[in-house]
């Protein structure tokens, strides 16, 4: 008898003839899961779309575009508001790194994200009550110094977290760079006013005309508040270090814009105006100069061509349309005139090394140019005014010294915005300051709650490669363009140059979004699965799940997923020979990640009695 004395070890005890309860039944997967047919199983794993990744404050751009597609504008607005206090502002002023990163840009044209954001921001402006409410008061007081983008963002997030926030603003009107650095024809004052009102609605106290170092000291801040966010920005204009710079008729970029913006300007410009500088502020100054009465405006840049200018190409284009001239490759070496500027002395100049990041070489041997002007606006950057800050927190570059969490040493002081970002290599943009303010607010909250600050450890999978999606599902479709005022008429008015999207335009543009790497409830997996393996309680993002009991691993859903949200995970770990049964629902930061807990418990539910 060959089988006499044979024993089957416990781990290999097999049901009779391998007949097992159905996979859906109790213990049905213990030994012979249907899943063993598979070599891979489909898993919903949301990636980070490149737009969200590029955004300075990581707005959930794909998320709100998807909601706009479905007509859920209020939900879309609420989703932006998680990361961005004032979409109506950034919907106008943002240099939209998201659109530069947009995968659609590699395919036909990037999504006009900023225009959709503005559409939603304006919708939020019209609400009598905002969707955002203040958090349950935690009894802690925080001062936010500065009401520009970073301060605004930090104050907003802190109020949502339950802090009693006081904003201290040096100027008579709150808004900081949003008010003083951005012309009305880009961002009308009333739009910003409405956003400031929203802060007050959140219970935030705004004290204007209060200057730190003059009205309030470092020690006062330390004494009166549990924590402080310093978002003081860069307020002092850089000089071009030319002789005669103090002559009458010479203005500096940011104060020029600020005075116009605050309505405090007594400036009267002559017919010929030169703007010195090649950045975005210089462009705004040149265009504002036209609106303040100048007839001929010339921009004088060290950069030797337009492409080198550290400016938004769109804004540059719009400026040239309005008739501003460019004079490349020169530096101002002297402001000429008898008490009042009459002309500029220009010498050929170029950067000694990298463009915009190295000292300027001026060729003083060359014959100087005499450039006749009535006024000069110098816009070559700003610097901080932080004389009141204890020296231990100052850097050599004249900025605030912080750790990577935005914190000043072991204090409860944090700093955010341009004041810490200048010279960091990051472009100075409103949206980056907003993101900075947001992150610092969350870090401050952690410190207040006694939690440790840890750097993020979850790897982020940004989906850059179109091959990870199924492009056959996306026909080419042109970008919806925002209408603009005609150049000839707009150069003389303070009216907004760029016109808003209509509802139809916003939806049409949102519809172009690929939803890169993220489930958008397209239902494709549900429809193409040859077995009834894909279940969803409703057609909604993140609610799709794979019934692994029945999935044969045919890959059809994975191949046919337009967005690349579905991916195949090897069933067998070939290194260990272990069958993985726990990978059905990957924990990831996306929509499915949010569902994971619920989905993981599916197996514990009682089997259906058929």
């Amino acid at each position, binding site marked *: 008898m060959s089988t006499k004395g044979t024993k089957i070890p416990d781990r290999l005890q097999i049901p009779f*003839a391998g*007949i*097992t309860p159905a996979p859906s039944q109790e213990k049905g997967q213990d030994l012979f899961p249907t899943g063993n047919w598979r070599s891979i199983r489909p898993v919903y794993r949301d990636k980070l779309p490149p737009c969200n990744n590029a955004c300075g404050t990581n707005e959930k751009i794909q998320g709100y575009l998807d909601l706009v597609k479905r007509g859920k504008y209020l939900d879309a607005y609420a989703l932006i508001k998680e990361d961005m206090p004032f979409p109506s502002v950034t919907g106008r002023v943002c240099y939209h790194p998201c659109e530069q990163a947009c995968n659609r840009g590699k395919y036909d044209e990037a999504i006009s994200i900023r225009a959709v954001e503005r559409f939603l921001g304006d919708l939020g402006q019209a609400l009598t009550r905002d969707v955002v409410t203040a958090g349950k008061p935690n009894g802690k007081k925080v001062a936010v110094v500065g009401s520009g983008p970073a301060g605004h963002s930090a104050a907003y997030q802190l109020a949502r977290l339950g802090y009693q926030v006081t904003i201290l603003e040096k100027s008579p009107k709150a808004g900081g760079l949003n008010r003083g650095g951005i012309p009305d024809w880009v961002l009308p004052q009333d739009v910003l006013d409405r956003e400031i009102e929203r802060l007050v609605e959140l219970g935030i106290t705004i004290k204007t005309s209060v200057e730190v170092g003059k009205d309030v000291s470092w020690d006062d801040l330390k004494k009166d508040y549990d924590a402080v966010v310093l978002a003081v920005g860069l307020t002092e204009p850089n000089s071009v270090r030319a002789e005669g710079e103090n002559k009458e008729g010479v203005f500096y970029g940011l104060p020029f814009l600020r005075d116009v913006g605050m309505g405090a300007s007594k400036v009267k410009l002559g017919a010929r105006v030169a703007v010195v500088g090649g950045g975005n502020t210089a462009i705004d100054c040149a265009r504002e100069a036209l609106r303040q009465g100048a007839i001929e405006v010339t921009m004088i840049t060290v950069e030797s061509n337009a492409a080198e200018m550290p400016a938004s190409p769109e804004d540059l284009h719009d400026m040239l349309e309005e008739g501003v001239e460019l004079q490349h490759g020169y530096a101002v070496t002297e402001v000429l005139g008898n008490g009042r500027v009459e002309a500029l002395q220009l010498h050929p100049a170029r950067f000694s090394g990298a463009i915009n990041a190295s000292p300027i070489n001026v060729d003083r041997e060359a014959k100087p140019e005499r450039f006749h002007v009535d006024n000069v606006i110098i816009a070559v950057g700003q610097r901080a005014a932080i004389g009141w800050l204890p020296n231990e927190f100052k850097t050599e570059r004249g900025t605030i010294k912080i750790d990577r969490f935005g914190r000043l040493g072991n204090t409860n002081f944090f700093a955010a915005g341009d004041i810490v970002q200048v010279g960091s290599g990051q472009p100075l943009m409103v949206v980056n300051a907003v993101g900075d303010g947001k992150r610092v607010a969350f870090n401050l909250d952690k410190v207040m709650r006694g939690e440790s600050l840890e750097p993020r450890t979850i790897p982020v999978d940004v989906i850059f490669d179109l091959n990870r999606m199924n492009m056959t599902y996306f026909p080419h479709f042109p970008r919806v363009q925002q209408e603009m005022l005609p150049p000839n008429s707009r150069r003389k008015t303070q009216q907004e140059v760029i016109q808003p999207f209509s509802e139809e335009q916003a939806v049409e543009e949102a519809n172009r979004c690929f939803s890169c790497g993220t489930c958008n409830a397209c239902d494709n997996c549900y429809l193409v699965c040859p077995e009834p393996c894909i279940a969803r309680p409703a057609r909604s993002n993140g609610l799709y799940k794979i019934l692994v009991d029945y999935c044969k691993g045919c890959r059809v859903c994975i191949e046919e997923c337009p967005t690349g949200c579905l991916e195949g995970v090897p069933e067998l770990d070939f290194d260990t020979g272990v069958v993985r049964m726990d990978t059905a629902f990957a924990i990831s930061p996306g929509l499915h990640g949010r569902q994971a807990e619920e989905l993981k418990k599916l197996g514990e539910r009682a089997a259906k009695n058929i």
Partner: protein
Amino acid sequence: MATVSAAKKKTVRINGCVAAAQAAKYADVDVIAAYPIRPYTATMMALAQMVANGELDAEYIVADSEHSQLSISHGASSSGARVFTGSSGVGVQFAYELYSPISGSRMPVQMMIADRTLDPPGDFGSEHTDALSTRDMGWLMGWSCDAQEAFDNHLMAYRIGEDPRVLLPQMVCQDGFFVSHITGDVELPDSGQVKEFLPPYKHPYPLDPRHPVSHGPQIMPEQGPPLQLERARAMEDSMAVIEEVHDEFAKIFGRRYDPWVEEFMTDDAEVVFFLQGAHGVTARFAIQHMREKGLKVGLVRLRTIRPYPTDRVKEVLSKFKVVGVIETNMGLGSVSSGGVLYGEVCAALYESDRRPLVLSFMAGMGGEAIVLKEFYWMTEKMMEVQKRGKIEKRTHWVGFED
């Protein structure tokens, strides 16, 4: 599906095919999977008539091939039905893929085989190679030598195969023509006797939507050996069940068979024939004639080849001086370069301390009858060997040598 209503015991004159059909009827089968091929076709013909005239309430499915026949049988058995199917010759071969899955999933399908020589060329005559080629696929297997034994074997095979200790499919074989088409008296039992003998089929885990289970799942390599071991265990455990069932059959129906071998005139025999199936009938006559002449010859007829009764064969054959294996099958290039039975016999005897000399006779090939004078010839050959005390020629092609 109780349809054999209160039939009284009676004797009828029918052939082996009809006897098999009658057995299926008495077993009250639920599903019949049919596909015609001579010579077993007459069985399905008889069953078709029974279903048509209401004698038997069963699903009669005409398949489109033997492969489908066995697939249908597999599925039907999985759902808990008692299944009857059958085939002959190349038909048996065409269904080959299904034999292991059916036994591996432990489905007690019953298949009637009326042997037919394999092609080429087309030959309707009986040769056991068709069924024997599947002998190691996990099916219980044995040969009948007449219609009555065929009837009885079919009933017993259901009882054995469906026993929860066994749960294996069964091939109930009979020689084409010599059994399938020769009529003889067959005692059909009282339906009450059958009811007492053969309880309704009940698979422990049938496919049933109310109690879902998975049959035939894909497994990991390490899960294969335990399943094979359990199938081997079932085959071995069936031996005790086979003996029990033969006892009980004798008690209820009054016909007693040795489940493993029939011995005929072996008491003082020195040379014996060893064979399966219908030629045993001719052999008995030949032996009687030779006994009258004083030759000490006898017959050992193997009734069950799977499971193979190794120890019993050893014990029985060790009593003799010479064994002549009548193959009736092809084992081209096999141990004896004749048929496959020789190897089975020799292997059983290897551990015996009184090993007889063993000859292999290629007789009854292609469905030829083995006539009396051929038995005499083979007896002479065996006696020569006995006298000489050793084998000079292991295998003889009977009818082709002097």
